[in-house]
Every structure is written in C-alpha cells, then in structure tokens.
C-alpha cells in the first residue's frame, strides 16, 4: 500500500488546479491519477479560444489553458500517473487504481479530491425513432474526430441540441467545408452561451430552430436524413409540423452528466439536480476528507470557474489534512422559484471565509432580481439584466452574515422577475 496525503482522481483542469492549490498550502505528498494518456482532460479537444479570460486575462484555446497548468505541475514535486484508471474510493480513503505498469495500486490517502469531469448524454437518453445507422454521434465525439484524429465525420449535418459543444461544432464543421443545415433545440431558448450563438451560428447563417426536435432518423447503413417537428409547451411534437431534412450526420448536444460512478459506488449521495455529490463550502462531500470539484460536481460552462472551484477544494483538502478545516454544525442552501440548485448545498456555520453560492436558473429572466433569504428575512439581493439557464450565476455571502444565522437554518435563493 502506498501512502499519500492527497490523492486527486482525474487530471483535467479541475484535478490539476486542486493539486496545485493544496501544494501551495503546504501539502507535501500529492498524487494525480489520470486514466487518459495525458493530463488536460476534455480541454485537449476544445481547440477554440475563449478559455482563461477571467483567470489569465488572455483568450486561450483549451490545450493552451491546460498546458499552463501542466507546466505549473511540472515545476512541483506532485506525482502524476497517467494511463491509470481509478476503480474505487473506499470509506477509509483507500484509493484503488489500475495501470499496465504497476498493475493494481492501493493508496492510503488522508484526503481525496474527486475530479472526474463529465460526459455527454448519449443517444439512448433520447427517444428518436429509426434504425441504428452510422452517422449519429454526440457533438463531443465529433469534436474528438475532427480536432484530435483529423477526420471529418460527415458533410451534411443536423445538430440536435444547442448546448455549447453543439454550437462550437456547427462552426467547426462549417469551417472544414461541411454544410450545417440547422441546429434544433427542444426548448424555447438555447442552452448555450449567447456569444456562441453569435459567432458559431449567426456568423455563418446557420439557422437555430427553437421549440423543435428530431422525431425520426432515416437510412440503413448510413444516415440519409432526419424528420424534424415543432413541439408544444409540453415539449410534445405537434402533428402536421413534420419536415424531412436530408443529412449524413446527426450530432447530439443534449447535455452533460457528471461522471459519478465512483462517487456512487463509494456510497455518496448525489444531488437530484446537479447529479454531483452534495458538498460544503470547501467542496467536502458527505464523506470526511473526500472533496469534489469541476464538472463532476456540477456542469460548468466556463473552465475558469472550474479552476476557481477546484482551488477552493484544493484549499479545503489542505486544511483538512492539516487539521485546520472547520467542520461542524451547518446552514443549508436551497434554490426555489426559478433557481434550480445551489452549490454548496451546506455551509459550516463557523466557516472561516466569505462563501459564494453558485446556481443556475430554470428559464430566461430579464431585469430580474436574485433574492437570498433566511427565515423569511432578506439577507442579500442582486439585480441582473439577464439570467439564462445556460449561464452559471453566483452571489457572495459574507462570513459575518453566515455567523448571524441560526444553526441548521435554511438559506433560500430565488428569482423575482
């Protein structure tokens, strides 16, 4: 059995930032375990720019952003094992992993950071009639084909779902000479960032069809076309609105799911909405010494926020290892009236710093107010010109305000339109 103070599961931006932050805070023995061949996570295939504006004040591509953290890691004595798959995180913080060189590895850790990222919702999550012909794939898979393998998966494309990866791929495929016919979105609003609609669709004249879905796929060996239809308020296809669109490729960009098999197997309860573990203000899960950050905790749209969150987790893990972390009675957070969820789900009453509450709204709101309350009393409010589900928001609770709240109190966050 190996011994480490901190074991980080996953070497994407989340894992790297958490490891570095823990190091900065005096933790000596740290190891990062990554199942892929290289560090960097999903950023390796995100070759477009837009990463790092908040964190580095520069517009970087995914690999450049990841590259900066890899460089910083190289400058430390943090151990890294790539091609290493973590199989289990047990109650006593024993991490089991496997790779070709060492075989089965057992590592006793004082603290563990879960940073496994997320994956895309596959086709099975949708109910589209039609045979299993080739040419249907998630947008992320297509992104890997084009950007890593240098291979064009199709020439006439329909994209279902207006998540950011789908939007980015609409532009990418167009630049490479494909005809992207349309992006269909089930909801009456896009799930992606506005800037991506502008520079990935509008710039190239690609139509975005809202309240529209794919009801059937056609083709035997290779996809030949899809049938699209408008949907009503209950998101059901409206008979008579069907339309045939010829295409050889259907890309799905219908959402991301945190990769939490490990967390579930280790007995962690997942939040119904985020599908990630429930955490406190330092991103400590319900298991002592097990932290979570990045897309495994909640799906982020900006890697800059992933980094910020992971630094919080790294700092929390460092405090835990040094026996300095506050753990005790809590106050609890809850999103209501338009606010879908809040991370963190609980805050230690005697916490040692201000706490940012991150959340997403369930619909588009203009000129709205975010209101934070406890026991019917307003603690905080913040005006927003625009709120949309595609963008994560936050409010900051002062440590002094938290201290004044009764123990076990419930803090609610809601939108007033």
């Amino acid at each position, binding site marked *: 059995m190996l011994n480490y103070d901190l074991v980080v599961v996953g070497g994407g931006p989340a894992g790297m930032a958490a490891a570095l932050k823990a190091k900065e805070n005096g933790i000596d023995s740290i190891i990062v375990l990554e199942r892929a061949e290289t560090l960097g996570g999903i950023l390796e295939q995100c070759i477009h720019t837009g990463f790092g504006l908040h964190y580095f004040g520069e517009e970087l591509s995914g690999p450049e952003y990841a590259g900066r953290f890899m460089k910083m890691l190289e400058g430390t004595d943090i151990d890294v094992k790539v091609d290493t798959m973590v199989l289990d995180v047990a109650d006593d913080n024993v991490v089991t992993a496997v790779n070709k060189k060492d075989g089965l590895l057992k590592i006793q850790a004082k603290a563990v950071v879960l940073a496994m990222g997320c994956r895309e919702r596959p086709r099975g999550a949708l109910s589209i009639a039609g045979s299993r012909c080739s040419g249907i794939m998630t947008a992320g898979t297509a992104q890997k084909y084009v950007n890593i393998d*240098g291979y064009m998966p199709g020439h006439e494309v329909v994209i279902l779902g207006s998540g950011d990866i789908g939007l980015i791929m609409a532009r990418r495929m167009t630049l*490479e000479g494909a005809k992207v016919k349309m992006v269909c979105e089930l909801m009456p609003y896009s799930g992606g960032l506005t*800037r991506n609609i502008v520079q990935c669709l509008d710039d190239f004249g690609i139509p975005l069809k809202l309240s529209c879905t794919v009801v059937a796929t056609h083709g035997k060996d290779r996809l030949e076309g899809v049938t699209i239809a408008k949907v009503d308020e209950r998101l059901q296809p409206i008979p008579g609105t069907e339309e045939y669109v010829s295409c050889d490729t259907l890309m799905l960009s219908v959402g991301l799911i945190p990769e939490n098999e490990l967390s579930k197997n280790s007995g962690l309860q997942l939040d119904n909405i985020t599908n990630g573990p429930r955490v406190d203000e330092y991103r400590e899960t319900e298991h002592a010494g097990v932290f979570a950050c990045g897309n495994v905790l909640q799906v982020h749209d900006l890697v800059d926020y992933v980094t910020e969150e992971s630094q919080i987790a790294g700092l929390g893990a460092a405090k835990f290892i040094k026996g300095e972390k506050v753990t005790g009675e809590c106050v609890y957070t809850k999103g209501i009236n338009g606010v879908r969820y809040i991370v963190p789900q609980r805050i230690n009453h005697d916490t040692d710093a201000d706490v940012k509450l991150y959340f997403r709204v369930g619909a588009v709101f203009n000129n709205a107010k975010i209101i934070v309350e406890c026991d019917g009393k307003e603690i905080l409010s913040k005006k927003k010109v625009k709120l949309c589900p595609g963008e994560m928001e936050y409010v900051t609770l002062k440590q002094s305000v938290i201290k004044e709240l009764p123990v076990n109190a419930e803090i609610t966050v809601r939108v007033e339109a």
Partner: protein
Amino acid sequence: MENRELVCVACPLGCPITVTFDADGNVATITGNTCKRGDAYARTEVTNPTRMLTTTVKVEGGKSYVVPVKSANPIPKGMMMECMKVINEASVKAPVNIGDVVIENILGTGVDIIATNYAD
C-alpha cells in the same frame, strides 16, 4: 443611422451592447459593456468585424495526426473561409511546440497562424 444591438463575443460573459451613431454615421455612444474589451469589440464590429480563427493543421512525421492552431490576432470576419483553404493545404513537421508559427502573415492580413498545442 439606427442603433446597433450587439452581443459582445470578446469573452464568454456575452454582454449585450448598444451602439448609437451621430449624424455623420460615426460611433456616438457604446453602452452595456462591462469592460474595456467590450468597447473595443463594439467599435470594430460596426466598422470592420474580426474574429479569432481556430482550426487544425496536418502534422507530418509524428504520432499526432493534426495540431490545433489559432490566428495570433483576430482576422477580418469575411476572410475566414479563404484562410481555411490556405491552412488546409499546409502541413507542419513534428515536433511542434505551443506558440510555433505555422503560417506567417496569412493572406497578407499581418496575422500569423500559431500552434496551440504540442505535437510529436
């Protein structure tokens, strides 16, 4: 001239920006941006719109098939497809480093195409 409603694409926040013009058609006011970059973006967007171009270039003699590249600075929006043609005809020899210039001064724009990842 009418006002122009834009969405700033200079960073992922996507601030809504309104540009007003004076009688001569020059920019009079820019509102809605929350930082200086937004002001600069709106000014170029209504005069000479530009975009960052990101794509890949073929790699020869290495393990990687392609290496990601970007324009070192934004290029005129209308020239993106032409630049793509040039880039798709080019290739680089492994190893490639982040920041290596892959194509100098593409189509006379004064902008270099540079590698954004390692390739060996």
